[in-house]
């Protein structure tokens, strides 16, 4: 039977080096697109305004974020704007004219 006294002290969570790498990748996606949370909030407001012309959406559950996805060549990642917009109901009438 293996007598692993050093294994006893081993941590279960992933090594901090890979944690650092993952955290960096995420933070750099935001840094590189140069999009602050303030800009994201403005974008969110505009999207709600436009979509509300056509359908009723659940503003509470609306989720807009910048993340990354694999690019077409599968050799790196590119930033994407992710939006999850739950629809409550469709407007029956034609879009409102301002």
């Amino acid at each position, binding site marked *: 039977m293996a007598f692993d006294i050093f294994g006893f002290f081993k941590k279960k969570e992933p090594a901090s080096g890979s944690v*650092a790498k993952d955290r*960096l990748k995420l933070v*750099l996606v935001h840094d*590189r697109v140069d999009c602050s949370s303030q800009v994201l909030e403005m974008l969110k407001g505009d999207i709600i305004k436009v979509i509300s012309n056509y359908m009723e959406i659940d503003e509470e559950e609306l989720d807009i974020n910048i993340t990354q996805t694999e690019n077409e060549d599968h050799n790196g990642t590119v930033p994407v704007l992710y939006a999850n917009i739950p629809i409550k109901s469709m407007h029956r009438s034609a879009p409102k004219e301002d």
Partner: protein
Amino acid sequence: MGEVIVITSGKGGVGKTTTSANLGCGLAISGKKVALVDADIGLRNLDVVMGLENRIVYDLVDVVEGNCKLKSALIKDKRYAGLFLLPAAQTRDKDAVSPEQMQKLCQSLKDEGFDYIIIDCPAGIEQGFKNAIAGADRALVVTTPEVSAVRDADRIIGLLEANELPNPSLILNRLRIDMVKKGEMMSIEDVTEILAVDILGVVPDDESIVITTNKGEPAVTDENSKAGQAYRNITRRIMGEDVPLMNLETEETFMDKLKKFFRRS
């Protein structure tokens, strides 16, 4: 025709000044005529790292303001033929110099016949950074394998590209191979993958840097220093030689062997 190389990082304390001193000294030992320029106006340090702090008469601001000739401000390092230092002003601030003046200064240094002009850039992304990169032909970005330093390096790489200094090369400083092996530090590959730039060199974390800096003698001159060896390799790469990354492995300690023994049993 001389080449102007700016050493930058964004974050402070990652080893810009140490790198500037070692590369400047290494290039001079290789027979090149080198000017080390301290662009950190108000917080000069390259003089003290080089051990030349007692020889300053004029500084960079004196030169750009025309108070003295360029030649009289350049301090000749008597230990290494061909090595000169242009110190920063200590009692002025970054606004004392403009990017245009820095471009002119770099051109004058080229006209003086220097092969390499190494500019030690201040930390940050403000005026001091803009001044330091203004006259550069090429940029080296220094970082350490820590989240804060890598993040700032990424920002700096973006800013360099926006300022017509594309494809900067990276120097990864203070790497601890023992920690990388345990997975507790980002590896060379992790950092280059994140930053997507070419790596020019890796400098191991080494006590000899503290000791040589204490004495004002760059580690590049110390044959027994691991970091010194890394800087000698980087120097050769700057001059266009193809030198493989050095072996960073350290000898196993008694405790390492003991741990291995228990894991096997």
